[in-house]
């Protein structure tokens, strides 16, 4: 019989002492190289908000300025998707985000208000997109076999020098790649390369590889600025906005189980 109602795991390790131990080797190298550096390039902790170049409106709905190279399969899906963002918004979208479903990755990056909190603990980098959590395993494990589709995918990460590389598969094809409705298949393979190039700046280069949906792999970039340590992620409750008849989402009936 299950003895306990709620599990508790204490994850200790971001105390200043242990983080300096964990990053001792690389910090020594980078400190000698940079001297003045007041941060560890291998520390991504904090709340990061996307930097939007002036006058670039597509940052709010797309990953790149140009059309990605869709296959006929993807074109058909793209035409069936009805986004509320982008050059051809629909009044009655069929965007699952309006049903308060998780956005998936890399869609989280296709918004001008995109912001996330990164937390580093032993064996994991945890990335909070509000209530949508990505656990990026850094303990050397591989992706599991027979992976079922996951809203935010299955992610493993490793440091290549000062670059944190996240490899993600298993992203549910119910999610879109961006907010203008570009589709992806269950074969989507996302690689994100993060580099903390300054104390307050994080650069992201991502590669989208999905041979079923795109004729070749393509890349997109974003830059993030570190928010002050006193900032908060806030309590953004999707259901506050969308549980009403206007969006066609009716309250759930209680489960009888």
């Amino acid at each position, binding site marked *: 019989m299950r003895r306990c109602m709620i599990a508790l795991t204490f994850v200790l390790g971001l105390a200043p002492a242990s983080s300096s131990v964990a990053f001792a080797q690389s910090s020594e190298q980078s400190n000698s190289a940079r001297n003045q550096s007041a941060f560890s390039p291998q520390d991504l902790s904090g709340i990061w908000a996307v930097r939007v170049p002036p006058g670039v409106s597509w940052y709010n709905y797309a990953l790149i300025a140009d059309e990605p190279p869709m296959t006929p399969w993807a074109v058909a899906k793209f035409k069936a998707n009805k986004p509320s963002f982008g050059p051809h918004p629909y009044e009655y979208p069929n965007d699952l985000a309006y049903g308060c479903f998780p956005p998936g990755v890399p869609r989280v990056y296709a918004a001008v208000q995109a912001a996330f909190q990164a937390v580093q603990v032993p064996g994991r980098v945890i990335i909070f997109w509000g209530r949508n959590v990505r656990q990026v395993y850094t303990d050397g494990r591989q992706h599991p076999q027979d992976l079922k589709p996951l809203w935010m995918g299955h992610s493993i990460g490793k440091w290549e020098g000062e670059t944190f590389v996240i490899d993600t598969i298993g992203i549910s094809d119910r999610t879109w790649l961006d907010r203008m409705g570009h589709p992806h298949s269950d074969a989507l393979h996302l690689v994100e390369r993060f580099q903390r190039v300054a104390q307050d700046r994080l650069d992201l280069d991502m590669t989208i590889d999905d041979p079923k949906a795109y004729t070749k792999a393509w890349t997109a970039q974003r830059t993030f600025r570190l928010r002050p340590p006193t900032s908060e992620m806030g309590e953004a*409750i999707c259901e506050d906005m969308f549980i009403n008849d206007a969006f066609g989402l009716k309250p759930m009936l209680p489960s009888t189980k």
Partner: protein
Amino acid sequence: MRAPASPGEYSNFAFSKEEPPMTPWAEAKYKAAKPVFGPNKKPAKDSNDPIYSCFPPGVPRIYLHRRPMEIIQLPNEVIMMFEYARFVRHIYTDGRQHDEFLDPPLWMGDSIGKWEGDTLVVDVIGFNDKTWLDRVGHPHSEALHVAERIRRVDHGTLQDDITIDDSKAYKKPWTIQSTFDLQPRVDIDWEAVCEDQKLVDRQ
């Protein structure tokens, strides 16, 4: 609450067998609640429990939902990751004060904490009045003030002594307790999305 709860046992849906000292205002709200548990329980199809609209359950009610919770302890905050409702609660321990301009108020409140020896003392205000305190429908007002004293009493046990102070709803503050057992190697399952229960009628 350390002993395994059997179905039907009150600790599945309430913190105490005794009725808390409700004001007339709270009595009226309690009677209007249609929970699926407790003395006023109704058939599931008639329930007006806010969690069935996929709203966050509130504090301390979320502790009654028996799904894993993981604590991440950082220098400036304690994060509680709840599998139930996929909720991430931030308890700031860096000395900041409550946000005085919470508009609208929050489903899970505004939590700040401080360490008193081996006890994490958490202060929560800024709630909206849309959540219930438990699964039997005890109400609260926006004046709700929740004070938690969370302490690891032994290696495998976390104890949370909770004081409910809400002068609009209760004649005096009352206290309850939640206990949690350590479960190593549990990974939170983030896939259970409330809206995905095939009970949502989307059109």
